[in-house]
């Protein structure tokens, strides 16, 4: 369990780190310094040509980073269930629900 969770966190960190480096690199190459202010949407982050708008890549990196702890909770809920540790399956499940609800409320 420890190894799995640690690998998951590490994966999220490395992936977002790479996206950030790539985004900053593209910024430097393309010289596009247009700064995206205003409300971000998921469509905006995922759409857009990475070579034309490197800031999309950077935002994707942020999103990966932010989603890593959420994924960690999803993963631990599943692992606890798999180990038939129902007490902790329930506990992490409740945390997950609270988190998802607060995230959707916060966005809305």
């Amino acid at each position, binding site marked *: *369990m*420890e*190894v799995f*969770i*640690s*690998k998951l*966190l*590490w994966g*999220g*960190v490395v992936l*977002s*780190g790479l996206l*950030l*480096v790539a*985004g*900053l690199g593209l*910024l430097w190459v393309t010289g596009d*310094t247009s*700064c*995206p*202010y*205003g*409300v*971000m*949407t998921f469509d905006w982050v995922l759409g857009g040509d990475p070579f034309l708008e490197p*800031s999309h890549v*950077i*935002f994707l*990196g*942020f*999103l990966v*980073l*932010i*989603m*890593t*702890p*959420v994924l*960690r*909770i999803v993963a*631990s809920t599943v692992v606890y269930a798999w180990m038939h540790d129902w*007490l*902790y399956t329930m*506990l*992490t499940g*409740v*945390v997950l629900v*609270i*988190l998802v*609800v*607060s*995230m959707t*409320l*916060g*966005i809305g």
Partner: protein
Amino acid sequence: MGALLGLGGGVIMVPLLVFLLDVPIHIASGASIVAVVATSSASASVYVRDEVTNMRLGMFLELATTLGAVTGASLMANASESVLKALFGLSLLYASVVMGVQMRKTDRSWESRPDDWLASKLRLGGSYWDEAREEEIEYGVDHTLPTFGVSYIAGILSGLLGIGGGGVKVPAMNVVSSVPMKAAVATSNFMIGVTASASALVYIRHGFCDVFITAPVVLGTLVGSYLGARMTRRLRGVMMKRVFIAVLLILGLRMIISGAGLL
């Protein structure tokens, strides 16, 4: 730095960005909250692998911090920020004094106590291999409910002030629940990412996020916290506790001053 102490590092980053680099405060807060998530995941990946993090304790207390964060966010409208900051500052000062007093009694970073009834029910007690002491350290978790309560309050504060709350959670685990300093720091780091990710998402969605400032800051913290977490292995818990007390004192004073509107 954040990784070493179980704090998000936001408390250091925001003033640095604002005063030294002339970044607007809301952009600085946005950058720092994303960086807090980075600190948490990067250092937790090391601590969890080394089995210093008490995952069960972390998951259990996350219940309190997330509930608290939701409470805090819904209280937002009718709370005075300066009173909150003053209260938070006072609790940090109190925590540092209690930790300091306790340190005079023992040469270790915690008082060894067995699990209480709730902790044994939840199997919260843990153990880890301490590289600095070169021994396997086993510990019990005492006074589980009070620590749960404190974590709930820490969650409220983080929801209200956008603070990770490590400054409250680490002393609670260490002093109230007799968890060794290293395990408390690792577990706090593990938890911080969860509440911070929720607030970071809100910041990003509202555009309080500048890629040119945030991306380098986040990259720096990713690398820094990974290295910091690796360094912690060799450090003694007592040493970490001393530094932690000093940082709490400074933070507490800063909070009170800023709450009083002087900063």
